[in-house]
């Protein structure tokens, strides 16, 4: 007649399997969104920084006037110089309509109607080392007044923006972890209050603090794990939908990829239930051991 008693203290009944997993599940859902946000910011930052830094814009004033050597128009001279420079890729002159659209906020829809001659604008990609200062000097000689601008400043701004967004996402993740710990602590304290007499009795019978804390921690770990897995399961379709919404910014999805979620997110997602379980274990241990200090 061997009897085995797993739950000596009655912790299973005291730490409800309803409230704690639901709250931890909600925290895990938010944590998954925050983690996805942090990863998306990191990815976009890397991509946008590269694109913005290499962008090259050349403005040629009075494009139809003759160049310095009177061989061709200023625009044609600049175009020829750009085409002959191996560090410049894909130079393309913007149409008058596109230029008009750019300056519309300041000059209205049709600058020509105001009698203004707009500069020609050429977009290109800078593939050379360092900054295009030598190119700017050469174009200045061919066509005085020509401006060469790179996207370095914009790249810095994009980097600052994405870094702050990433910081916000990580802060949300930290707050969610703290709230999850608070939820576990409150549930554990409620369980301690419910089992106060039982705990005082087993303490008096010689139970170690580690024994009592371990029983609460095991229960809190299990409930946090269950809740977190549930929260993650709910978060995955939402994340897939958000990734689909963001696809114009992130580029086309890889064919055959699992619901098109970024590989980094899929790799980190299983860590969330593990983290929730650890928070449950650690918080319950600290809460119970702290509470037991009041007993002699």
């Amino acid at each position, binding site marked *: *007649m*061997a*009897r*085995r*008693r797993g*739950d*000596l*203290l*009655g912790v299973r*009944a005291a730490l409800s399997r309803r409230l704690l997993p639901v709250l931890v599940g909600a925290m895990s859902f938010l944590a998954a969104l925050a983690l996805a946000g942090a990863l998306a910011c990191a990815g976009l930052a890397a991509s946008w920084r590269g694109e913005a830094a290499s962008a090259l814009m050349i403005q040629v004033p009075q494009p139809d006037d003759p160049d310095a050597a009177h061989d061709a128009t200023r625009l044609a001279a600049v175009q020829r110089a750009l085409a002959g420079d191996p560090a410049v890729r894909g130079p393309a002159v913007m149409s008058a309509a596109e230029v008009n659209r750019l300056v519309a906020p300041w000059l209205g829809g049709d600058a020509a109607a105001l009698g203004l001659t707009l500069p020609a604008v050429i977009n290109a990609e800078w593939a050379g080392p360092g900054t295009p200062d030598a190119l700017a000097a050469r174009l200045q000689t061919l066509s005085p007044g020509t401006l060469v601008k790179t996207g370095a400043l914009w790249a810095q701004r994009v980097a600052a923006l994405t870094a702050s967004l990433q910081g916000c996402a990580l802060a949300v993740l930290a707050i969610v972890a703290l709230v999850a710990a608070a939820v576990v602590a409150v549930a554990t304290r409620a369980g301690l209050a419910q089992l106060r*007499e*039982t705990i*005082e*009795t*087993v*303490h*008096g*019978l*010689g*139970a*170690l*603090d580690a*024994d009592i804390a371990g029983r609460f921690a095991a229960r809190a770990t299990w409930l946090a794990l269950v809740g977190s897995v549930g929260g993650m399961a709910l978060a995955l379709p939402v994340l897939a939908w958000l990734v689909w919404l963001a696809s114009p910014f992130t580029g086309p999805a890889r064919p055959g990829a699992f619901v098109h979620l970024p590989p980094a997110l899929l790799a980190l997602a299983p860590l969330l239930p593990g983290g929730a379980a650890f928070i449950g274990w650690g918080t319950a241990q600290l809460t119970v051991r702290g509470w037991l200090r009041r007993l*002699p």
Partner: protein
Amino acid sequence: MVRFDDVWLRYRHAAPGEAAEALRGVSFEIEDGGFRWLTGPSGAGKTSLLKLIYLAEHPARGRIEILGTRAARLTRREAAMLRRRIGVVYQDFRLLPQLDAYDNVALPMRLARRGEAQIEADVTEILRWVGLAHRMDAHPDELSGGEQQRIAIARAVVGRPRLLVADEPTGNLDDEQAERLMVLITALNSLGTTVIVATHNNALVERHPFPRLGLERGRLVRDG
């Protein structure tokens, strides 16, 4: 050995009308394997003195030695280990409501990580001793006051403690059960367990003439 040397106990939150000092300068010594009745009127400090012995309170002043160990120097782990060598019968039984009689009695042995085979043998034997072998599956709320008290006694002695502390252990027992309990306690005592029993039952004390510690208003007024 149990030794008290000028021990004072003060409750921080004494109820109105109650003395804040439950014990005042109590000194005594009980040799290993000794037996003491602890007597005195209600409120004399009997339960407070027992709490100090089973390490449920810290003294405000004085020195306490339990089973050869100074209580004030114990770490929490050492205190827990010492408690495992002390059997306690609480005045209010303190049975765990979610456990049946068998598991309540087995609790100290499980906390001490004894093997299930030994637990089964010892618990079954002690339940037979207290006359409740047939009630081992009953939960505390299904037991009478006297049965609960016998389960509490069985739990206190099942681990063959070096020191047995009992607070009014015969309060809910009839004379026959009380006498049966005394046979068990004196048998344990004769095997070397030090015993301290607080009681109001003068007839029982007279039938078993062991030395007495007498308390009045927190002071020791009789030792011997």
